[in-house]
């Protein structure tokens, strides 16, 4: 009779719809990294660096999860370590350095400093996994600026240091209920915490690691455009989880965020393609150009996906892609951009697009887009949560908050990334040797992406004995 009251085997605060969507969304975001980014980057680099690039993606993902369980989650989303008086910057700076390991820590109801409006209806394990896949994709994104010369051992050191000192701090300040969150800066799914930050890290990192060999820059043929299509396709549709998961409820704002994300992406893709057809010397549409535009749309809508309406989403895709296209084609010829070998252009498609998208929140956010309604009352009654940009509020308040948060992300990420890279430079070194770089995967890993077999059957008996050979 103990279980007669209910035959549902989970706690009353848990909502199966919310929990299911959150786990599905997290898995979609995870697929953006593996295999999404791994095969996208593998397809974009020279054939001789495919294995190296893909292994860095897989190893980075794994390293981030271990860091996340041991201390990362609690530093970014746990209760704050109060380094200063309540309300001050250092009171809302970073959480405690402690693992997420006990049964209660995983199965108990998720709480974080950010969800002051309504409680989460899923356990901490769900929130921690969802937040992990966001953390994991960030170093993989800035890896795009460093491929083709970064030392493999350096990467194994950079990822845990960067997650701890850069990502956890930025996430706590904007998403964990920290200082900028309290001030009113908003970032729907990571235009700042992920994309602007990855763009800065790629640029600063590439400057410190130094350029690829000139031979590799001159012959930077992508190895396989079909794999690029597979990777980027998973990334587009995976973004449904990226932005659709960030209301943390399987509600109407999740649906709106998914639709807005896709329309901004479509507009971005078409904008870049038409600009290539109209304004480049060759006047030709290119596949890789269209994909750049697609990424601009995805990244730029990320800070605002559930807070702009359909018109806003189209404008975000259009404005961001036009600006990034201009940056890609012209800013890249001006110092310091012309002097830094950001191999896959992360500073443009992620850094610039993330910044533009974050600032556009301050103009285009529609207060009619209710992220959190008021239960039991009129859905959009007082107490509901939405964001209002200049076009609706005629106030620059939101834009100013967005600007301050962006300035922080740029300064903190760049400074700490530089610190980490210089530390790694003097400890394990940042570059593979030029002799190894000339050969690539075979020298670095003794593997290659497409091994050419010799077709003959072996003739000599194997030197080792194996029961199959008797």
């Amino acid at each position, binding site marked *: 009779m103990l279980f007669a009251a209910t035959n549902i085997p989970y706690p009353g605060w848990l909502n199966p719809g919310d929990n299911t969507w959150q786990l599905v969304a997290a898995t979609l975001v995870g697929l953006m990294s593996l295999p999404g980014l791994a095969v996208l980057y593998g397809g974009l680099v020279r054939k001789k660096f495919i294995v190296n690039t893909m292994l860095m993606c897989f190893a980075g993902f794994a390293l981030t999860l271990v860091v996340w369980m041991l201390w990362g989650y609690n530093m970014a989303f746990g209760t704050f370590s109060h380094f200063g008086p309540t309300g001050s910057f250092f009171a809302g700076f970073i959480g405690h350095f402690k693992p997420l390991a006990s049964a209660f820590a995983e199965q108990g109801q998720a709480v974080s400093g950010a969800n002051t409006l309504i409680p989460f209806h899923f356990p901490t394990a769900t929130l921690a996994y969802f937040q992990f896949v966001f953390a994991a994709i960030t170093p993989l994104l800035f890896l795009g600026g460093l491929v083709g010369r970064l030392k493999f051992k350096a990467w194994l050191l950079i990822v845990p240091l960067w997650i701890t000192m850069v990502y956890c701090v930025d996430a706590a300040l904007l998403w964990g209920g920290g200082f900028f969150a309290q001030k009113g800066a908003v970032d729907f799914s990571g235009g700042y915490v992920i994309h602007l930050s990855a763009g800065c890290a790629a640029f600063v990192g590439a400057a410190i690691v130094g350029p690829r060999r000139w031979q590799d820059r001159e*012959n*930077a043929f*992508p190895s396989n455009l079909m794999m690029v299509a597979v990777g980027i396709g998973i990334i587009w549709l995976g973004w449904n989880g990226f932005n659709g998961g960030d209301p943390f409820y399987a509600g109407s704002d999740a649906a709106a965020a998914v639709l807005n994300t896709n329309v901004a992406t479509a507009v971005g893709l078409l904008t870049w393609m038409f600009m290539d057809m109209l304004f*480049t010397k060759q006047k*030709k549409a*290119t596949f*890789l*150009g269209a994909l750049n535009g697609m990424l601009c749309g995805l990244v730029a809508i990320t800070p605002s996906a559930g807070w702009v309406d359909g018109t806003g989403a189209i404008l975000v895709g259009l404005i961001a892609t036009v600006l990034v296209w201009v940056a890609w*084609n012209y800013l890249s010829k001006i110092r310091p951009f012309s002097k830094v070998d950001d191999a896959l*252009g992360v500073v443009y498609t992620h850094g610039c697009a993330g910044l533009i998208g974050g600032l556009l929140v301050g103009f285009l956010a529609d207060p009619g887009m209710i992220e959190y309604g008021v239960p039991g009352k009129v859905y959009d009654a007082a107490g509901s949560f939405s964001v209002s940009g200049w076009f609706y509020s005629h106030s620059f308040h939101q834009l100013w908050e967005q600007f301050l948060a962006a300035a922080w992300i740029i300064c903190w990420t760049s400074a700490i990334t530089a610190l980490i890279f210089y530390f790694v430079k003097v400890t394990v070194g940042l570059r593979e040797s030029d002799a190894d770089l000339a050969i690539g995967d075979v020298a670095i890993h003794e593997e290659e992406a497409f091994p050419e077999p010799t077709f003959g059957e072996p003739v000599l008996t194997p030197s080792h004995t194996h029961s199959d050979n008797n």
Partner: protein
Amino acid sequence: MKLISAVIKPFKLDEIKVAVREVGVTGMTVSQVRGFGRTGGHIEIYRGKEYEFDFVDKLQVEIVVTDELVDRVVDAVASAARTDTVGDGMVWVTDIEHVVRIRTGERGPSAV
């Protein structure tokens, strides 16, 4: 016995196969090769950067024939491969010292 070699435009392969069969050739070997001649290369654009491809994709055809067949096969290959544009390729003939048919052990012209 002669070895007839030809470097041709890839899309001409089937026409050459049909033409040399008609004059009595029983076998040929094809390899994918790249080369430059008077054609010059072409341009490809990746991520806004232009790359010049100097070496053009070609096929190399090799046919072993008896002395009496040489002229007819060379003519068949040359006329089948012609498009009257730059880059049609080249046919050349070399002497063969000796031939062995591996399965039967036949030697000389009867092995061809």
